[in-house]
């Protein structure tokens, strides 16, 4: 009985983690799509992980980033960078996804 309970716990643990991994991976792929296509961040920024070689804004592989700072920058823009949130170019959810993607991918 104990063995069965143990195996059940192990099974649930792996199922839960696999779902999380799949969910994270899906969000990362969505983030990459927003970065390269929807918001076209790649046109202005370099980030090796996305294959981006833009040279208008800072090279994202060389700056210190936090999810909070990227969300702020993407939402409100700066200089030539559009205010993706304020101007409703991206949804709040898309901004969060692309920001997490950038922070997870920059410098790698």
């Amino acid at each position: 009985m104990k063995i069965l309970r143990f195996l059940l716990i192990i099974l649930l643990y792996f199922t839960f983690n696999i779902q999380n991994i799949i969910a994270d991976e899906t969000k990362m792929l969505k983030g990459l799509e927003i970065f390269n296509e929807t918001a076209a961040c790649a046109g202005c920024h370099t980030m090796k992980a996305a294959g981006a070689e833009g040279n208008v804004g800072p090279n994202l592989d060389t700056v210190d980033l936090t999810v909070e700072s990227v969300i702020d920058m993407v939402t409100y823009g700066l200089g030539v960078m559009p205010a993706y949130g304020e101007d409703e170019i991206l949804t709040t959810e898309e901004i969060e996804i692309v920001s997490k993607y950038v922070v997870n991918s920059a410098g790698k």
Partner: protein
Amino acid sequence: MRKIEKKLNLKRRSFLASTASIAGLAATASVVPISISSANHNDGEKGLPDFINWKDRDALIVHSDKGIETHRSAIGESLITPNRNVYIRNNMPTMTDAQIGNRNDWRVSIEGVKNPKTFTLAQLKKLGHTTVATILQCSGNGRGFFEHKVRGSQWKTGAAACVFWTGVPMKAVVDACGGINGEAVFMTSAGVDHEPTGLDPKKAMVERSVPKKAFKDAMLAWEMNGVSLPNAHGGPLRMVTPGYFGINNVKHLGKVAFTAKESSVKYMKKSYRISPIGKKGSQYPSCWEMPVKSWITRPTDETGTVRAGKVQIVGVAMGGTKKIRSVKVSTDGGKSWNRAKFIGPDLGKFAWRQFAYEANLSSGTYNIASLASNGSKKQPELRMENRRGYAHNGWKDHSVNITVV
């Protein structure tokens, strides 16, 4: 579409691989000390982006490949800031030699004058010749002292330099065009560095209007500290507006127009406006004339502990668009002030002046500050709070703490 899918698949593998190595990276980071100044540089020579690999890495703090600050103690012990130490702040990518072509064939059009003309750089060199020392300072110099979360490079003191410019006075150019049209209120300068990017000029063109009166002191510069104006600093031709913040000194200059209205591009209408925190808009003042300001360059927390006894407290002071008149130094956090001496040559009201105050300090910790005056205005104690962290000249934030042993 197939190409996108390929890239997504490729990046998916890359993401999974990077996830697996996170633990390894964290372990490395915990044993390797990383300082702010060296943690975020490029892979290029000396850790500097390729377009400025000729600069002195040790003199610079790299915020990003587009925002590079001079260390407080490296802005120039001999008054002028050497090119290799001058900060970098570019809104558009620096133009390459290939994009610029033959420098003497570079063209600038002059409009809003009686006889509009286009001059090549070679033709400009025949119109007049002058050399002026001015302070080049980013509007956001001092942003790093603001406590609200301000977007942009967190400059402390090093987005500033004192530079010799050589070129033609704008007045000589205007005279060659028969004078300014009567209705002009602004001098509007436009760069062409946005053109290779293909971005919308309304959003990307650096076009700046300043009050027309600025043309009397302005010049079109092709040399910086005795060498051909580096591309990274706007070569081959740059507008220089003495006494005005850096953004108005337009790089890669393609047009100067005397206009009845301010430019309508984003960099004029929306950016560089000094607005209250939480507010924005073109109704707020633009970053034009620089205010009176000073700061200490030695000793600082960068220069280590100081030996007890006589200590030379050295710094730089600027009057903005007026001549600097006096500087006082405090060694007790502003409770008492002593007049400092100006040292070195006076290069005119648009250059900064070095100052020195000899203090006799025993062991202990000190907060040392400087307070400049141009006769009509002096530095405030506190910063002027504003949304984008512009025009900071408060003396308190610019003070330094030193330890004397």
